[in-house]
């Protein structure tokens, strides 16, 4: 239960012993470097051996007008000496670099929590932009919280004065000053940051020195303030983790690595066709750096060309991969149907965001489940897998590649904006510990008299993969219905019925190759089960854990294989009195469960662009068991 300070944040400033976990939120202007500050603080937290989870929360605009409410960019991190599975319900500490950042983030700050504000930015102009009638630092409106305000701008300018920077450049060191203070607060080593700054500004030693000076000044300020103010240094101990080598990883990174690992296990080169879209672009950004692993990347002219090129590459014998977010996935729909019809392997990654249409480009949601499971013309079944966390996404990507290549089918891998951007510690896996699933291409005619039967099927119901360029295996494929025996164009009634049945049976049969559904937490029956999928794992898990500690009869089942579902899931769910499905949509997985199992699954929806809090789910558990 390490989402935040358990008994309130007084440990931070009071006399009590160190808390198990702390939630800190850095908030400032889009241009203030809050994501960078948060990222570096995350690294230092990981190096200190804490478990952690982060939540970058930034606007869709790249550089929104300075000081505005909609331009506020925030980075939240939850870290502790016990297992951390969410970015934290409510921050204990809010670092507000201007009035807008304070205003936008104040309502989530825990009552009694600590506000650290840059008073230098609370001038008339910025207060007006943030729509404050009076200065909140001075009018007593923040009395419910502990307030520490000082002129970070002036202190930074003073610290970097010896380096002769212009005013604008000097003020850009503010984030390092703030980071220095945060590092002091949580007893962190500054050296990795100093090394990183030296590397970042390798061509400009003056900037490196100035930033390091700001970092040191912030750190020194903490030491001094401790003597006189409410600020107190807190040490969060290292988490008791499984032994091994660790690093931090974001979902975009782990998916990229997992796809490469999957391609290696299949023995295939990989082709990635993509088109820039938030929040999926980071997968393409990561893969372009992995060319030596047999990766070819192609930035296509649009989403349709991105998937079409990937299908073309699969046809030619590569592992074709494409990725996008909801609007782009919508455009890819027709081509997905072609991949279903021609039975070619393909992995489609959807980093879901708030929709419909452009919706909330930088905010998270899980509302593309219908699109993934049902969203194509014709009977076009596609396996769907959902990752629960950044580190889980690695295994999910490998699983997607396995299914795509072993069953000759497109596979959809669902993640979301939260998983893509959030970081967590990751026990570095050993790729050689995974069982390979090598692909064999057809090299000789497989029909009578030297004929080629491109739609003959193996025990999995999969057709042979035939690369153009293979001598003597010339054949034609396409989107038109075909004869089940010969593969030639044939849209007769019998052929379409048979082929539709065969395609469905093949995808249904995948259920035989996936593990039985386990109960993630709790027992195999009882009064209530919470069924989750994707990135709601953390809050559901923590809420169920808390409720169980209070003696409530509730379990957690978290589903990775959305389509086809694990064979035992229906029976498992029927063992519970009530089924509640928390998801960041209006009840999409709930519909699938009802449809498949005739269980009375109830929805718990949230579509605010923010992840669930533990408290929200815990309240729903209480209500369901009342």
């Amino acid at each position, binding site marked *: 239960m390490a989402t935040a300070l358990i008994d309130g944040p007084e440990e931070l400033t009071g006399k009590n012993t160190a808390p198990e976990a702390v939630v800190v939120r850095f908030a400032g202007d889009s241009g203030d470097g809050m994501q960078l500050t948060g990222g570096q603080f995350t690294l230092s937290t990981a190096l200190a051996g804490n478990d952690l989870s982060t939540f970058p929360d930034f606007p869709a605009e790249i550089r929104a007008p300075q000081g505005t409410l909609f331009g506020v960019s925030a980075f939240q991190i939850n870290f502790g000496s016990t297992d951390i599975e969410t970015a934290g319900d409510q921050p204990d500490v809010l670092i507000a670099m201007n009035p807008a950042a304070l205003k936008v983030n104040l309502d989530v700050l825990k009552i009694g929590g600590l506000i650290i504000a840059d008073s230098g930015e609370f001038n008339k102009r910025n207060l007006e932009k943030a729509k404050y009638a009076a200065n909140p630092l001075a009018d007593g409106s923040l009395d419910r919280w502990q307030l520490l305000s000082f002129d970070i701008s002036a202190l930074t300018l003073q610290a970097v004065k010896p380096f002769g920077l212009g005013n604008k450049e000097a003020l850009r060191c503010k984030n390092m000053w703030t980071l220095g203070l945060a590092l002091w607060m949580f007893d962190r080593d500054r050296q990795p940051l100093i090394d990183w700054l030296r590397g970042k500004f390798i061509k400009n030693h003056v900037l490196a020195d100035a930033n390091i000076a700001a970092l040191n000044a912030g750190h020194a300020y903490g030491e001094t303030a401790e003597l006189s103010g409410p600020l107190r240094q807190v040490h969060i101990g290292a988490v008791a983790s499984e032994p*091994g080598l660790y*690093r931090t990883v974001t979902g975009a990174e782990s998916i990229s*690595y997992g796809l490469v690992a999957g391609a290696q296990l299949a023995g295939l080169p990989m*082709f990635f066709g993509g088109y820039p879209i938030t929040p999926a672009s980071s997968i393409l950004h990561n893969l372009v750096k992995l*060319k030596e692993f047999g990766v070819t990347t192609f930035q296509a002219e649009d989403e*349709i060309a991105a998937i*079409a090129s990937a299908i*073309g590459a699969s*046809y030619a014998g590569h592992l074709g991969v494409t990725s996008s977010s909801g609007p782009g996935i919508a455009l890819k729909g027709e081509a997905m149907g072609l991949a279903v019809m021609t039975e070619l392997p393909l992995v489609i990654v959807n980093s879901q965001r708030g929709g419909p249409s452009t919706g909330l480009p930088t905010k998270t949601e899980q509302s593309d489940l219908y699109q993934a499971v049902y969203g194509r013309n014709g009977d076009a079944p596609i396996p769907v897998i959902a990752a629960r966390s950044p580190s889980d996404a690695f295994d999910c990507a490998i699983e997607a590649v396995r299914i795509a290549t072993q069953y000759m089918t497109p596979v959809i891998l669902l993640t979301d904006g939260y998983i893509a951007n959030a970081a967590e510690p990751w026990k570095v896996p050993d790729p050689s510990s995974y069982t390979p699933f090598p692909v064999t291409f057809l090299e000789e005619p497989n029909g009578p008299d030297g004929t080629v039967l491109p739609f003959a099927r193996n025990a999995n119901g999969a057709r042979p993969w035939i690369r153009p360029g293979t001598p003597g*295996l010339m054949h034609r494929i396409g989107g038109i219905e075909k004869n089940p025996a010969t593969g030639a164009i044939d849209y007769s009634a019998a052929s379409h019925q048979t082929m539709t049945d065969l395609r469905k049976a093949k995808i249904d049969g995948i259920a035989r190759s996936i593990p039985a559904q386990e109960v993630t937490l709790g027992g195999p029956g009882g009064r209530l089960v919470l069924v989750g999928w994707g990135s709601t794992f953390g809050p559901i898990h923590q809420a169920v854990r808390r409720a169980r500690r209070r003696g409530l009869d509730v379990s957690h089942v978290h589903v990775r294989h959305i389509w086809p579902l694990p064979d035992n899931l229906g029976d498992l769910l029927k063992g519970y009195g009530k089924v509640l499905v928390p998801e960041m949509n209006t009840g999409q997985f709930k519909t699938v469960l009802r449809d498949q199992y005739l269980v009375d699954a109830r929805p718990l929806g949230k579509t605010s662009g923010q992840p669930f809090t533990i408290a929200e789910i815990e309240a729903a558990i209480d209500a369901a068991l009342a």
Partner: protein
Amino acid sequence: MNDLTPIKTTIKDWETDQEVRWCPGCGDYAILKAVQRTLPDLGSDPSKTVFVSGIGCSSRFPYYIESYGFHTIHGRAPAFATGIKLANPDLDVWLITGDGDGLSIGGNHLMHVIRRNVNTQILLFNNEIYGLTKGQYSPTSREGTPSPTTPLGSVDHPASPCAFALGAGGRFIARSYDISKDLPAVLKAAHAHQGAAFVEIFQNCIVYNKDRFGDFTARPVADATQLWTRHGEPLLFAKGTKGIALDADALKLAVVDVTDGDWRAAGVMVHDQTNRALAHLLVEMPFGLFPMALGVIHDDPRPTYESALLGQDARARAGRSTDLGKLLASGQTWTVAG
């Protein structure tokens, strides 16, 4: 085209057992025969040849060629072809499209496959009508074309395929028509070109747009109305009695009469297939006042997309570890002791 070892085939080797389903008399039959006649001459290997198409009458083409074939989705064939070439640049890829498939729903992809210069032969069958959906006007239909969707005649200005391809940066632009005896020569030149080779083939839709191109393809008028461009030769037509000259002051072309074969005296230009400006002028000549320019109008290769991209990838890979375990364990890590 690719530097493949030529192999011996006959026209029979390129025929499939599929029943051809175009309307009797369709221009597509003549194009199919021309392609099947050309492939043995090119020394092409059916195992290394891929025909990729979109949707429409023309796009049924791959089913009738005994090679690898991929009948994809409407307008997107260029993107599939790009993926195929990047995955295996040794394949000889022919892209079959039509005026609706290539210039309407697939205009974006056609532009980019040409712009990138993916090494393929792009054959656009232009019949100025939608055939497979039963006769609606197309983006190349002339103004005033009556059709089920434009009963009072279309009002929009048609696209010019060759001008489009040039505008997209095309380095090989050629034009021919279904029943032309010179179509195989044009196809061979397209195949010889390293890069995206764009060929517009006027094609007679016997059902919905019959004899649309008869005013220059019909035998009696052919000589007087067809200008075949040949690199290094004067731009003559009408059995050498007329030619194309440049009006340098107005920066436009003019038709001039040639007396006693003295084309130099008449100011007739010599065709230079590497001259892009001339190519633009030739493909934009308004038919009627001018003849129809046919043949290889522009041919000036530059490096292909796949050679550039895959070359860059190869350089980036050189000397780098392919140990994934090592990569995963790189960066800032920490160890939890057991």
